[in-house]
């Protein structure tokens, strides 16, 4: 299933947050969205997943999601959004309970996603017992459990320290290599974008418009820290964003 954004514009009251976004999100690829703060990256993600309605334009679903997909458009949130009163297992089963699966079926799914996210030993742990990185792995496991057609990831690594971020990026790459998923990955971190994105969409400052789409052709598994091409791509992205970010910063000061 592909997604297509057609002439997407949105405003809150009199504030225009994005204008005329046209974008294709092809199946099996990770599309990263970067831009200065306040450019409407997160709003765009909420529009794509139907948590908000665009002022004008539309988000189109091209083709049907795979039949086994329980929740085609699935989010991974920056703040993890785990229920503190449920165990790791309970948090995953939460999103399966409304789908009328048998106990054995949902148990199989839970076991499978916990293995894939290396959480099998923490099945009965409560969120407060887990580190930030583990919490986000639980959230990723929960997202995988509903077999999404597209994962909508809203700065999923931004609340984590840089070491944990590196580890989780490796995990995401491994997950993608095992079974290629489609993802829209919003981030303000350019290193994450060049590491995980098949294409990187650079948005301008508010109202957000697409400035450039940068494709990264190196396969995900072969991207290493310090790779010259990736470095150059990152430099290029920073060049695009620098003036926008500075202007956005000034705007906030005058507000």
């Amino acid at each position, binding site marked *: 299933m592909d997604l297509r954004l057609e002439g997407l514009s949105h405003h809150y009251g009199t504030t225009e947050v994005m204008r005329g976004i046209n974008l294709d999100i092809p199946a099996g690829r990770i599309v990263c969205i970067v831009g200065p703060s306040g450019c409407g990256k997160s709003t765009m993600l909420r529009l794509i*997943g139907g*948590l908000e309605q665009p002022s004008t334009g539309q988000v189109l679903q091209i083709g049907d999601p795979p039949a086994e997909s329980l*929740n085609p*458009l*699935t*989010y991974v*949130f920056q*703040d993890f*959004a785990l*229920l*503190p*009163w*449920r165990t790791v297992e309970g948090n995953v089963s*939460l*999103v399966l*309970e*409304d789908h009328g699966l048998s106990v054995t079926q949902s148990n199989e799914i839970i076991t499978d996603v916990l293995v894939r996210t290396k959480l099998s030993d923490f099945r009965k742990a*409560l969120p*407060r017992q887990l580190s930030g990185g583990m919490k986000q792995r639980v959230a990723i496991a*929960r997202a995988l459990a*509903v077999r999404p057609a597209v994962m909508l990831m809203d700065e999923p690594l931004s609340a984590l320290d840089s070491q944990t971020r590196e580890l989780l990026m490796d995990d995401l790459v491994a997950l993608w290599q095992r079974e290629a998923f489609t993802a829209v990955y919003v981030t303000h971190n350019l290193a994450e974008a060049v590491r995980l994105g098949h294409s990187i969409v650079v948005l301008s400052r508010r109202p957000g418009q697409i400035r450039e789409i940068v494709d990264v052709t190196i396969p995900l598994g072969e991207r290493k820290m310090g790779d010259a091409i990736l470095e150059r791509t990152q430099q290029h992205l920073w060049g695009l964003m620098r003036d926008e970010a500075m202007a956005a910063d000034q705007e906030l000061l005058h507000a």
Partner: protein
Amino acid sequence: MREAVDPSAKPVAFRGGGFAPTPVRLVGPVVFIGLIALIEVLTRAGIITSLTLPKPSDVWATFVELWQSGLLWSHLIPSINRLLVGAALGATAGIALGVMIGLFSLVRAGLVPLVAAIFPIPKIALLPLFVIWFGIDEASKYALIAFGTFTPTVVATYGAVDNVDRSLIRMGQSFSMSWWSIVRKIVLPGAMPGILSGLRVSLAIAIILLVAAEMLGAEYGIGAYILQAGSLYDLERLFVGVSILSILGVTVSTVIGAIERRLLNWRS
């Protein structure tokens, strides 16, 4: 090489203490027993006259007498029955309405002003009205206690629902959970800490109203017992009654504490 240390060197003074309450065992009982012992000594010595305060030992003797005569239970059981029925009615209705106010804007717009108007009315003032509406028997007592428990429970409950983390609700929606699932699995557990701490207050109010309810048309009950003692200026019995209420309050608070530990064990 510690001798080589500069003579002007001195340790940095510690200034980080305090402001962190730690449990200190036995101090509570010691203060309590000490106070009673002090009153006992002062009343025996005649410094406090028997008109001002009864001797604690006499209060204890009166209590034992009450117990042995079997009258303790004939007063206590109707009271506990009234408390349980009244508080259960009031708390259930209060939690139900509080959740509705928290979930539906229309209910909120319609009822929040009403609850705010009812909240400050001393419910005791309405007792004569309840007697006319529900009769002088048990029903009017249930009604008074229920009504008194109801308003603080409503306010605590909708506050608790409002405080449920919105990002968790948004998460539920993003996984296409049904409205009812979101309410049952996210909103209610999330509001539980606030609801329980509201219940602590409501149940204390229920005990106060219990006494008020029993002051009109009750032959048996702790309230009736206290009222009788008061009108005869029988201080020993008055204090026995008041102590029983105190113990009732501590028991209720302990029960809620136990429920909290059970239901909210995810908190820390």
